[in-house]
């Protein structure tokens, strides 16, 4: 059971930062609340009484998103369902809908935020691999007495271990900025005990861009979660594929190599067995979608017109 001595709903970022700067020890930021409520139960944290909860869901500056050239900046309150409901986001960030559909369930996605998933830094977080693949960067803000301090950090550097990040005291994630990958084919693969509401035993995010002939990899992005203390980008595999001809044997070969990356503390053998299949399926599916993506994008433009 979770109780709060105080529960604040700041409406602006300066208010939120001021509250957070002055917050007593043990205070928590609350975004979607979909992780903190199950955390305060028997078997995990038990009954918890927090001195202060600062609910960020009404902070105006954290809402919305915009595109700046090749990057898409998402306000920290962007929720997972947005990637399924907003066609523009789906077009700019084609891996996100495929990840989102596997994320929790339709209802939790209405509340759970992308930023919250990154900050919780679970080794099995579904959200981190696609963000790594999209060169995700966080904007972190902090109240410094008379002004707001801002710094940016790559998500790859931000997540340091299970539940551990480089978030400094007083900092709030303001936004998540990602590569716009319009025209890429994408895939997200996940295995768990069931479909909905399941923590990944392993998950893989892949993005593929083909050259003009549709026969060679022009760009490949690949990241994996659930198989070690932190989700990882698989750059060695990306590099082997970039420029190479689309070839099932090559994909199978590089996929085998991914098994060596499994560094989990449990079910290592199982994970080593499933990972190559997932990497292969993700690359094949992303490549297939890359082949058909231009037509699909064109169709959507036509529908919008």
């Amino acid at each position, binding site marked *: 059971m979770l109780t709060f001595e105080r*529960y604040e709903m700041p409406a602006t970022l300066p208010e939120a930062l001021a509250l957070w700067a002055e917050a007593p020890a043990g205070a928590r930021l609350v975004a979607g*609340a*979909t992780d903190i409520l199950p955390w305060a139960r028997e078997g995990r944290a038990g009954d918890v009484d927090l001195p202060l909860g600062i*609910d960020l869901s009404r902070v105006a500056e954290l809402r919305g998103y915009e595109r700046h050239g090749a990057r898409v900046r998402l306000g920290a309150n962007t929720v997972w369902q947005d990637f399924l409901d907003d066609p523009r986001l789906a077009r700019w960030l084609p891996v996100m809908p495929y990840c989102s559909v596997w994320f929790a369930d339709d*209802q939790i996605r209405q509340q759970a935020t992308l930023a919250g998933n990154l900050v919780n830094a679970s080794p099995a977080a579904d959200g981190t691999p696609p963000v790594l693949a999209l060169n995700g960067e966080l904007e972190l803000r902090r109240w410094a007495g008379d002004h707001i301090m801002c710094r940016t950090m790559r998500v790859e550097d931000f997540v340091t271990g299970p539940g551990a990040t480089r978030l400094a005291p007083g900092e709030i994630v303001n936004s998540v900025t990602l590569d716009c990958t319009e025209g890429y084919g994408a895939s997200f693969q996940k295995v768990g005990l069931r479909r909905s509401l399941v923590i990944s035993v392993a998950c893989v995010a892949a993005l593929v861009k083909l050259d003009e002939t549709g026969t060679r990899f022009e760009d490949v992005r690949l990241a994996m979660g659930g198989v070690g203390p932190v989700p990882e980008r698989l750059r060695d595999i990306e590099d082997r594929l970039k420029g190479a001809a689309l070839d099932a044997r090559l994909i199978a070969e590089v996929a085998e190599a991914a098994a060596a990356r499994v560094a989990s503390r449990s079910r290592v053998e199982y994970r080593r067995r499933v990972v190559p299949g997932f990497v292969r399926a993700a690359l094949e599916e992303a490549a297939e979608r890359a082949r058909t993506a231009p037509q699909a994008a064109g169709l959507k433009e036509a529908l919008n017109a």
Partner: protein
Amino acid sequence: MPEMTLDMRVNGRKVTRRADPGQRLLDFLRDELNLTGTKEGCGAGECGTCSVFVDGKLVKSCLMPVAKAQGADIQTVEGLARPGELEAIQKAFHKTGASQCGYCIPGMVMAATSVLREAPEASLDEIKERMGGNICRCTGYSKIIEAVALARDVVTGRASPAVLEPEGVGDSYIGHNVRRLDAPSKVTGRLKYAGDMVMPGMLHMAVLRSPHPHAEIVSIDTSGAEAMEGVACVITADDVPGKDGFGVFVHDQPVMARGKVRHVGEAVAAIAAEDAATARRALAKIRVEYRELPGLFDPEDALKPGAPVIHDYAPDNVVKHIPIRKGDVDKGFAEADLILEDEFSTQQVEHAYLEPEAGLAYVDADDVVTVISPSQNITHHRHMLSEIIAKPINKVRFIMSPVGGGFGGKEDMIYQGMLALAAMKTDRPVRLVFTREESIIASAKRHPSRVKYRMGLKNDGRITAIRFEMLSDGGAYGMSSEGVMRKAAILSCGPYEVENLQVDTTAVYTNNTPSGAFRTFGGMQAQFATESMMDIAAERLGLDPFEIRRRNMMRAGSLTHTQQRLTSASIDRVLEAAEQASRWEPGPVGMRGPTRGDLGGPGTRAPCTLGARFETPKDSKERVA
């Protein structure tokens, strides 16, 4: 607790309350507004019994601090249809028989409503995908999905609204769509389960549970909890006025641990307080001194000489041994062409009914101690409680509230005694609602069992003898173990006529969570072993798996394992139906080569995946991805 003025529209009506902003929307709806159609099944976002619309979006109200709903438009199951009426989706649930225990149903109806609003053209796969956040344990989902598809067809004009109306039953109910009388109360959320019930002046109970599997209780000091403001009473085994002990067969379980604890999660003391949060906080003020004892965690260890004794009355740790003898097994094995030996084990299983245990007790004006709970065995509970509280039977009353799923797991009187004692001690109504975690830790489970199997067969597949030896982990208390062992023994060798058999089923005490009744009552564990043996035998003898069963099956005139003469038997028809339904290709295992035509046909469930929503063409909204 902090307070904040909360303004929102709930089911079209303006609501303003001063309330704790950090409490869950679920608690606000249930406790402040008494909208109990929204249920709590897990409190962790896993089950969907608490689904509600907030500004048109379906969310899980157990995961939302109520402050997030400030100014919002909330719709609960009570707000879907006007009183006395049903929406199409509710009628469809009624029509297809989708509501069974009904506890998941308000949430299911809400999730289905969301599907019809968001994706009115959804395919069956998309319906399943979109409803993935809601769990049901009774139906296997088929009737629920059928209901959503039926409502979809009506809403989109593909079917006439008449399909939702009752069908005439003609001369016989058999073979006709017979409507459940209780469905309207379930699909509207009107039905009150025990945890939904309130009485004026009602207290809330919390239970202190053992952290140890086996320990002597040296002392319990309740003074700190007693002294807390808001605490009405603390009860322990010392408050039992009569003969303490309950159980389905042997009354070996005290209302609360008496002298020692025998499993993790056993009730040690209970507190009744003005609100549930106070009761839970007060638990931390009870001081219990334990002296840990060596524990038993494996049923084989329980039978070893010198093993710790869990119950004084059973120095050998045996709850029950059921032997069955028929014919002469030595002769049968001597006649066999093939003797197979193997071992089979099955694990502990939780019932996971959507409704966690809950009850409400009070003492009425005529001093009748009354307990309302979803008990699956109220008459037996009433007789046991009368002894425990030392009152004549006419001063003890049990009322069975709607059972939000039981499957055998609500046959044991694991909390009703505590409620009765607290109501008697305070003269006030007392309610206890288990958390999901509490339900899992304290309620009985399916017996984990090991079967040592020896089967003798002739080359033609006829069984000549079976030796079947089952050892089951009964856990810390007897509960239904005796009956489960008896049923396991009776069904042990399956629906096959075996002339020579030797069957022993034994349940032993350990310090694991008690095992009790669970659907099939021991049959499942036995059949897993027997049917596996039949398949192994078929493979070894080069026989078709159906054929080996036909050669051994019971018929009219057969003598059962317990030597009852059958006047009829239906397994021949069952086998025939299964063979046809599966489009079985006859022949021994391994004779078909690499491919077989009877796999993956119509009616076979496709592998689980997600993404159906990306495939469905949809006119009204652009599809993403």
